[in-house]
């Protein structure tokens, strides 16, 4: 399986946010997208996942997932920066939006939900969960339909090291099973799982091929 993102364009009024953004990835690979705040990483994800209108194509095995929402809902899972959860309900009740009763029991018993450690807090109300729990729960929701492509927007932002490690371990496992991961990140610890690293700057995507040292990355982000 291979994904091929081509010519993504997005304009807000007269301002061009994304200019001909293109990249590709194969099964078992992880693409990292780095950029300053406000560079357009979240907007890129929104356009690719049909949350906002934009131009371009998101090809996967001959299907344009930007236009085919049915195929996209089966093949792509998305974990936004702010977990899309219903705060007054428990973890289990939130999962009911994504899993049937049977599927949920199976996954909690030994599947992906158990892998994410969700059974420990599935009965807790979301408003009482920690940030790490909410993030893991939202990953659990995103992978309900067993997608082969996972988009994550700053998955370990504001999480402690233990939580970060758990999430990174899970993503490594996802990759190892042939999945494709696309991460928008600021976090150096997430860079270690990225096979390809891109810098989003001035609306354009640049492949970063140098050493992944912080000072070099910062310099790259700051360069005109």
């Amino acid at each position, binding site marked *: 399986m291979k994904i091929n993102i081509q010519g993504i364009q997005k304009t807000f009024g007269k301002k061009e946010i994304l200019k001909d953004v293109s990249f590709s990835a194969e099964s078992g690979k992880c693409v990292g997208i780095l950029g300053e705040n406000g560079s357009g990483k979240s907007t890129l994800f*929104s356009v690719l*996942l049909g*949350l906002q209108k934009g131009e371009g194509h998101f090809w996967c095995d001959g299907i344009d997932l930007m236009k085919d*929402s049915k195929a996209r809902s089966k093949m792509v899972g*998305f974990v*936004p920066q702010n977990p*899309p959860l219903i*705060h007054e309900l428990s973890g289990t009740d939130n999962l*009911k939006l994504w899993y049937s009763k049977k599927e949920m029991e199976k996954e909690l018993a030994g599947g992906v939900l158990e892998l994410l450690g969700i059974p420990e807090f599935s009965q807790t109300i979301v408003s009482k969960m920690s940030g790490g729990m909410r993030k893991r729960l939202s990953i659990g929701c995103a992978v309900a339909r067993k997608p082969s492509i996972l988009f994550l927007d700053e998955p370990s932002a504001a999480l402690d090291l233990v939580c970060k490690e758990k999430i990174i371990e899970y993503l490594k496992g996802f990759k190892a099973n042939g999945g494709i991961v696309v991460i928008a990140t600021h976090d150096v610890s997430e860079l270690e799982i990225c096979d390809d690293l891109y810098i989003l700057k001035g609306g354009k995507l640049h492949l970063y091929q140098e050493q992944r040292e912080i000072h070099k990355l910062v310099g790259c982000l700051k360069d005109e």
Partner: protein
Amino acid sequence: MNRFFGYIKVQFIRAIKHYPIILIFTAILTISVVFFVKVMFQTKDGEEGKKRFEIGLVGDLSETYLDIGIVALKNLDSSQYYVEFTEMEEDEAKERLLDGELYGYVLIPEGFVESIVYGENKPLTYVAANNPASFGPMMANEIIRVVSQMVIQSQNGIYGLIDIAELYDVSKKTYNKAIKDMNIEYISVILDREGYYETTYVGLGNGLSYKDYYICAFLILLILLWGIACASLMTRHSMGLLRVLKSNGYSMGGMLLGDYIPFLLLMSINMGILVLFGNQGIGTLVRILPAVILLTAMQFLLYELSSNIITSVLLQLFVTVFLSYASGLFYPIYSLPQIIQVCSRELPVGIAFEYLSEILKGKTGWETLPQIWIYSFAFLVLSYVARYYKLRSNRYE
């Protein structure tokens, strides 16, 4: 379809979690409104029983026949239940009139009865506090004119009899008895005047009695207040989930209905509880339901237009107060300016009120139903549009 049922199931779970708080607010609101309505009706009935309009009698009241007439008026006439005639001096009458204690006073001139005898017909004067062009004094004027005519004509008859008796040398003893019989005959005619007409009450403009009008009005107001009590359930804190669901193939129309149906169900349950307490059956609830659907659809749109709980509640309150006033929930609609009366018939609260009025009068309300369905559908369509534009806004949350 599965996604729709999955979504609505989760929304029902949310609604059940919120319902205890909603129920507490609903109970407080309902008890307050019912208590207020009860006090209002009791006070009005009580006041009608106790309060009488006081009219002063000023002037020369020494004449025997006049005195008899006044005694009869105070104790035998049906007007004694709503008008109190009190003898007093003119200064006292003026002072009490200005203080608002008297509705008016009748000034009987000196020699009034003699003037009738000699055909001079000195007029009675009615002194009132209000503008003579207003309804109250105008009615009082007419009453005084009628009474004075009756007095004048009856006195004319009696003195005519005396003249004839003296002309034909009839003994005083004989004609005194005849005068007495004649007076009693006149008095009984005046006192029996209620037998000459019939009064029919057609109600407050729309055919409802005062009580039924306000029962209907407060029922509508309760529905609107219950809707505000659901603010914690209906205010959406984040559009993020909706965006993610939409990108995963959830239909926006399905999600909208999935949010509206639990709201409608909660409101129907509230109405059902009230109907049960009012010893009415399920049939009454079914008949009231279209009004509930219309008002909840309107409130649902208002919730879609707001972004947080404070603006939600403020918007709901403002619209509730405005539409309630304009639709005659606080004051009878016929007392409002004509333009408001006309507009009220097209407002959603006015339509719901019209429909409930028909139900209370024992009719089906079918004539108002098409308007109810059109408005409800329109509100839901507008809610869809509002949500569409909200979801399209720049950033996802």
